């Protein structure tokens, strides 16, 4: 079942200047007309299929710059602030190269600065001799320093050894005194122990003699009785 309004309605649907009232009327019709609704839906699907396009990257090209520069008779620089300063790195590189190639000497003294260009063989020989002298001075200073370090190391070693020996001797004497005192104490202790033991032995012997005397007296008494 077709609808006479379909074409007009769909054309207006995609229009940009639809008033709110017209939009409301359209929606009302779409709500009641199945044909228009189905037609619009399929067209919207077709449109959304197109919207799946994904932009492709532009192949490399010169963007008409050759023509632009040729016709404007401009070098490969622009008017921007950055482009105006693009000569700076090149200029700095060239200046450094010139300084190296021309062997520029800049000497600062109390009277001011002096700049000299170039350097002959005499300058090179003078520089070489200065370099050798400097190297020798450095070597001598290094040797003296090594010698001083070694001397100081020897002195330190001797002092350390002496200190160790003194300490060892002192310790040994103290140890001997301590051992002597220990032995003396042990000897006195042993003497005391011997004295006590002897006394105990004497006392024991005395008791034994007394017992024997008593036994003898008893035996003698028994003999008398018989």
């Amino acid at each position: 079942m077709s609808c006479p309004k379909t074409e007009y309605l769909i054309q207006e649907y995609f229009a940009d200047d639809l008033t709110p009232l017209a939009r409301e009327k359209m929606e009302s019709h779409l709500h009641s007309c199945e044909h228009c609704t189905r037609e619009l839906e399929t067209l919207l699907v077709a449109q959304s299929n197109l919207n799946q396009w994904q932009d492709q990257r532009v192949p490399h090209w010169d963007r008409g710059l050759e023509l632009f520069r040729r016709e404007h008779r401009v070098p490969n620089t622009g008017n921007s602030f950055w482009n105006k300063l693009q000569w700076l790195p090149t200029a700095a590189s060239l200046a450094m190269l010139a300084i190296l190639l021309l062997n520029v000497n800049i000497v600062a003294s109390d009277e001011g600065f002096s700049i000299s260009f170039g350097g002959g063989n005499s300058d090179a020989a003078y520089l070489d001799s200065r370099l050798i002298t400097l190297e020798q001075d450095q070597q001598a200073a290094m040797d003296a320093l090594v010698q001083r370090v070694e001397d100081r190391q020897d002195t330190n070693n001797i002092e350390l050894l002496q200190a160790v020996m003194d300490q060892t001797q002192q310790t040994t004497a103290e140890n001997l005194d301590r051992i002597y005192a220990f032995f003396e104490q042990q000897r006195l202790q042993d003497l005391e122990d011997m004295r006590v033991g002897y006394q105990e032995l004497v006392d024991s012997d005395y008791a034994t003699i007394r017992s024997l005397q008593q036994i003898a007296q008893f035996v003698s008494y028994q003999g008398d009785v018989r």
Partner: protein
Amino acid sequence: MSLIDEDEALIAAALNGSAYAWEKLVKRYEGKIYNHGLRLMGDSSDAMDLMQEVFLGVYRNLHRFRGDAKFSSWIFRIAHNKAVDLKRRKRLLSSQTRVSEQEETDIFASIPGESNLEPEKTVGKQQQNRAIIAMLGNLPIEQRLIVELKVFQAQTFEEIADMQDISVNTAKTRFYTALKKLKVVSEETHVLS
């Protein structure tokens, strides 16, 4: 600064001889014009030809741009005219008016700059775009231009009518007819579903 203001500043600088401004202006629009060309011409080399002709036209006529319209509208008007011219020339050179099967399969085969991207994504993107180009290939150039301007460039029917020198109603009717044809093609081939 808005995009329009930036465009105007770049145009003014380019007119004063700034190659930097010109390059920046071209960079800003080359992607849109190139993809516009791909959809209209259906071929990457024709799209490049169109893009170069468009920017040559822009360069030659830049002093005529007064700023009373958006630069984007102006450049797409040039693109529109150049596309019609190019199609006409191609039609004269060849009896083939539609993209042949061979061309369709080779459309994206040699697009530089895409080979370094992730292969699966690139292939998927190419297939999708190829299907869209095949669908658009069923439309005559007048309808294809209207679909391009309405769907991809989001222009109003008034702008389209003005650009194509037709009435607003004609523009609406052409767009409706084009969408109906695309719907039929889409249903027949199921290319995207």
